[in-house]
């Protein structure tokens, strides 16, 4: 929270300018991301919140150019002052795993099943830092200890299937951190884990983030996870950011009707016997770029003015902003 009160540093670690991603296939076109502007300061944790199809994972993947070839990406992506979209393949290969690393939801599919965990970490170090095999293995051991894997020395020679889900996720974090990235991208890394393991991994990520001073972009659909780890939250809906701001005030009361509905429909605390507030309807199909507020068909506060065009981002003060005509500028 304190990060939000400080003046933003001159050059953000990550900056998205009017990012749009369109998937074009023979049958149909999907406008997954429609003009996202986002910034991340160094050492900051930003949670992108949203439901399935909101474009949160696509935004994250665009940052590392991991989208398939038929995805059309426009706008600006800048990480540590470099234009990511202009990088050639060779530069891109250095960039991925070097300056930016990513952890995924399913460690079993993200890790290679035929190499030991130690080899997979050492490979990153050898590739990016040109270290010898022995040096790289020594570094792999350090990393396994860093992510608090018990009996790390023995686990170096373990294959991914020999580890439990929580340890596998820790091993994947170790691979991602191998070259001390400035920016860590996390795509729902705790969603597949059990409750008692999820909290361990969240606390580990928070500790590592603070110790290594990384910027982290954390994609999740879970408000609780955002509450545990985020400095700042950005809520996406139908490919746009509808609200953004420091996590504390956001959780206390969102500005935009969509996150308000999301917060109300999330079961938390003792809500027994109450009828849960729901958001009626379903998100739009995104076969064309929404030309008005894309939430208005489901919004209880909608009025004709909402159909007039895409609402502009309104600065509400305190670093908070939202895309709704009802938000008063502050």
């Amino acid at each position, binding site marked *: 929270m304190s990060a939000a009160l400080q003046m933003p540093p001159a050059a953000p670690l990550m900056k998205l300018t009017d990012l749009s991603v369109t998937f074009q296939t023979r049958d149909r076109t999907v406008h997954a991301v429609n003009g996202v502007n986002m910034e991340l300061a160094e050492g900051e944790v930003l949670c992108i919140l949203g439901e399935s199809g909101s474009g949160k994972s696509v935004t994250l993947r665009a940052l590392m150019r991991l989208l398939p070839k038929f995805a059309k990406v426009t706008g600006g992506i800048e990480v540590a002052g470099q234009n990511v979209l202009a990088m050639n393949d060779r530069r891109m290969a250095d960039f991925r795993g070097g300056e930016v690393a990513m952890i995924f939801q399913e460690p079993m599919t993200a890790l290679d099943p035929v190499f030991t965990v130690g080899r997979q970490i050492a490979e990153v170090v050898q590739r990016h830092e040109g270290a010898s095999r022995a040096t790289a293995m020594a570094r792999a051991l350090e990393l396994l200890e860093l992510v608090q894997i018990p009996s790390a020395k023995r686990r170096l020679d373990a294959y991914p299937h020999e580890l439990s889900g929580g340890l596998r996720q820790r091993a994947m974090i170790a691979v991602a951190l191998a070259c001390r990235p400035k920016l860590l991208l996390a795509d729902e890394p705790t969603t597949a884990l059990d409750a008692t393991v999820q*909290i*361990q991994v969240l606390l580990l990520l928070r500790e590592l983030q603070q110790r290594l001073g990384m910027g982290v972009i954390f994609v999740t659909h879970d408000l609780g996870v955002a509450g545990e780890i985020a400095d700042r939250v950005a809520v996406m809906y139908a490919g746009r950011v509808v609200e953004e701001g420091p996590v504390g005030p956001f959780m206390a009361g969102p500005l935009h009707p969509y996150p308000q509905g999301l917060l109300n*429909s999330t*079961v938390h605390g003792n809500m027994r016997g109450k009828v849960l507030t729901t958001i009626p309807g379903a998100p739009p199909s995104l076969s064309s770029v929404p030309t008005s507020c894309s939430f208005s068909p489901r919004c209880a506060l909608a009025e004709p003015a909402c159909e007039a065009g895409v609402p502009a981002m309104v600065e509400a003060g305190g670093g908070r902003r939202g895309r709704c005509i009802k938000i008063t500028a502050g």
Partner: protein
Amino acid sequence: MEPNQDRGGPAQPLLALRGLTKHFPIKGGLFGTTVATVRAVDGVSFDVLKGETLGIVGESGCGKSTTARLLVQLLGLDAGTMVFDGEAVGEPRASGLALRDYRRQVQMVFQDSYASLNPRLPIEDSIAFAPKVHGLSESEANERARELLAAVGLAPAQFARRYPHELSGGQRQRVNIARALALQPRLVILDEPVSALDKSVEAQVLNLLVDLKQKFNLTFVFISHDLNVVQFISDRVLVMYLGEVVEIGPVDAIYDRPAHPYTRALLASRPSMDPAFRRTVPPLVGDPPNPVNPPSGCRFRTRCGFAEDVCAAKKPVAADLGDGHLAACHMATPGSGHSKAGAIMEVAI
């Protein structure tokens, strides 16, 4: 098809389970011999009371889904007995309740809404399928399917002839619920029914389940790993760990006065939405152990902060804490040999 009727009166448990056991052999070696056994469900006993919602919580591998499959007899029991409203399940008709009759009264909703529907049948036909098998005519069965579609909030005129792939996840789960109700069951087993849904849709389906329970006089067994959802919907809660029941009791007792260290850890592991109340220390370290070789004595002792010698030596018995609240922990049993036995545990959640 006659409607399912109450037999034993309101005080008799709808389903009484004693010593439920299911072990899965792991085949291996040169001759495909059994090299190990997964003790998925190991001597589980509990009652499902009439008209209640019993929540079952636990982590992956604790046996909650296997328990669900045993309850609907998708898996056969290795040991144990099931008594449904006074009748032993799986006996010949003369002495008990035949499986076919049992299944008319007990239905299930699965987590994966797409995999559990036949992709080649319009949803109306999927719902009407079981009533036809159980003797309803084509037109009667279709009429019931349409009534049920309306009851779960899908307008029949618009949705009845659609195929599963033409529906969203939330709509498909509504169809699964309608199908589970098609035989007018008395007990519905819901195995993670909302886990795959987005939050706003989850709330819709939870509201629907509460409505339907009232409307059709149902009893629910609701299995989930989401403790907030279980607290919302359950009257009583059962906590499982490595194939065993560690605690069971009224929902408020479990959430306000959890007696088993595992229940306390589970509750404390819930992420806090308020950043002012962030966790600093994880309540538990490590993952749940493998159910192939569960620890001796108390199965939770390897992750428990209070474990002593007695926990390895002796399996805890369920201690009665009053009001139907039972916990299988040596600390809850006075005179068990544990140094903290009988002491009132401070609740730190």
